[in-house]
């Protein structure tokens, strides 16, 4: 890289500092407020964990968190399985139509609200009772698309001759998949699964429309939305801090895996 003048370097650092300030000040404020006794942005009235305590005592939030976990785990599992198979199936073929490509790409770009109302109309027309299961059905739609795209990216550099080599050495198709293909693409599969999991945990609009009656299918984002609608409460700050901490962990994990993948 060419040498930069001190002025140019200063400008670049300034840009970075401003952007990071823009990105992190709002989050930092929430985190700080979550430990503020008063919970108000008006003044610091002392360190306190009471908002975390009241969060832990909020059964609505806890059951919503549990529901979110169920939806994310189940939809991620299904999506990872289907998405990986789909990715392998596509990459095996040397050619496929634009239609297929569009079908797989669509769930990633279709506006949430459109998919949400489409599924709502669909489920209600089928006279299906909505609940966690309908949220899961819906989440798999976009999750499998994301898993598929991550795994496909890995498969683009996959040397298919090793599959042939395995067959040549006498392995069955299943054994080849288990012993050769899967180990090679596994980091991508896990990275895709983590991505799907995070998206599912965060997803609000589709869950909101496809959820059934009652707390039984209220997810965390739905609960957060209701809390925000009912006014600023410091419990949200505590919740935000926890959600942030979980995201940092998940993202760090997936980064590690991705690096491992590149390393292979």
């Amino acid at each position, binding site marked *: *890289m060419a040498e*930069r003048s001190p002025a140019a370097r200063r400008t*670049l650092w300034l*840009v*970075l500092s401003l*952007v*990071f300030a*823009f*990105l*992190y000040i*709002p*989050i930092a*404020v*929430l985190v700080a*407020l979550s430990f503020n006794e008063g919970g108000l*942005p008006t003044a610091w009235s002392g360190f306190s964990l009471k908002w975390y305590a009241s969060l832990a005592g909020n059964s609505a939030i806890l059951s919503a968190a549990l529901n979110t976990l169920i939806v994310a785990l189940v939809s991620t599992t299904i999506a990872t*399985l*289907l998405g990986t*198979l*789909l990715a*392998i*199936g*596509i990459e*095996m*073929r040397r050619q496929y139509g634009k239609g297929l490509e569009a*079908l*797989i790409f*669509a*769930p990633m*770009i*279709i*506006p*949430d*609200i*459109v*998919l949400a*109302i*489409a*599924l709502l*109309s*669909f489920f209600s*027309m089928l006279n299906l009772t909505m609940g966690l299961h309908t949220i899961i059905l*819906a989440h*798999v*739609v976009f999750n*499998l698309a994301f898993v598929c795209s991550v795994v496909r990216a890995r498969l683009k550099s996959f040397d298919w001759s090793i599959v042939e080599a395995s067959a040549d050495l006498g392995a069955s*198709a299943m054994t080849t998949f288990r012993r050769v293909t899967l180990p090679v693409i596994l980091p991508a599969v896990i990275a895709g699964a983590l991505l799907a999991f995070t998206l599912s945990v*965060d997803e609000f*609009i589709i869950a909101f429309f496809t959820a059934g009656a009652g707390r039984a299918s209220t997810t*965390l*984002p739905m609960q*957060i*939305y209701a809390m*925000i609608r009912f006014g*600023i409460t410091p419990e949200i700050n505590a919740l*935000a801090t926890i959600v*942030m901490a979980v*995201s940092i962990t998940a*993202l760090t994990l997936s*980064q590690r895996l991705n690096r491992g993948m590149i390393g292979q």
Partner: protein
Amino acid sequence: MRSFTPSRSSLLMAPALVWLIALMVVPCVLVLALAFFRRGIYGGIDYTFTLENFGLVFDPLYAGIFLKSARIAGTATLIAVVIGYAAAYAIAAAPRRWQSVFLFFAVLPFWSNYLIRTYAWIVLLNRQGLITQLLRWLGYTGEPPSMLYTEGAVIAGLVYNYLPFVILACYAPLSRLNPELAEASRDLGASAMTTFRRVILPLTVPGIAAGAVFVFVLSIGNFVTPALLGGGRFQMIGNLVYDQFLTANDWPFGAALAMALIAIMLLVLTAQAIAANRASGRVEAAEGNANG
């Protein structure tokens, strides 16, 4: 030579494709079909064929809301692209070992909950919020500024939420750019500005286009941000669709609006594909003109 039978790959693809068709294609077709019926008197659907829902989309009121949504989404896109590109450029110019760290922290907020990120802006912007406190602390005693529930607040919320993606999308081509290209341009007598305009920018257009499309499509269909940061004072298409389904119980019209949203999205995506494909060609055509 890959010696796989098409039937085997079809078998692998089948479960996912069935899922996508049953739970995405069919419901979307259904919504399209809904748009051709009437709203029942008390909500619900009256199964008589009509085109009036599509006509209504072009009613000056709703067309106006479309335009306004496009304007808000477009402004948010423009700001996000300018900031995001600058950030991506700065990251790509940083020492290698720092780049992944910067990138990680640029993308990190994107993985926290969207609603929480939006909520943070309520905390910052409301009249008793942090910015007002800051002004007070700085000695300002007048009327606190009204920042929440404005178009600016909605745009800020959209930019804030989608900026990380723009940074990511712009960083990819910038980091792949051979640094010798910029040096070659300088070597051939171009100033830093000209080098940016004629070499770096055209070669990173695909990233910009991808980021811009992402922000625009997500913004124009958004209903959460206008609802929370706009104080109900801003109607965007997302809110309109939401209202038709959950407030007015006018599903057919809501369906027609959703289809219009999809149409806009397809239009934008086509534009992006053309921009990405012709990025190079277009630049050259411009050069051809400039040279006479």
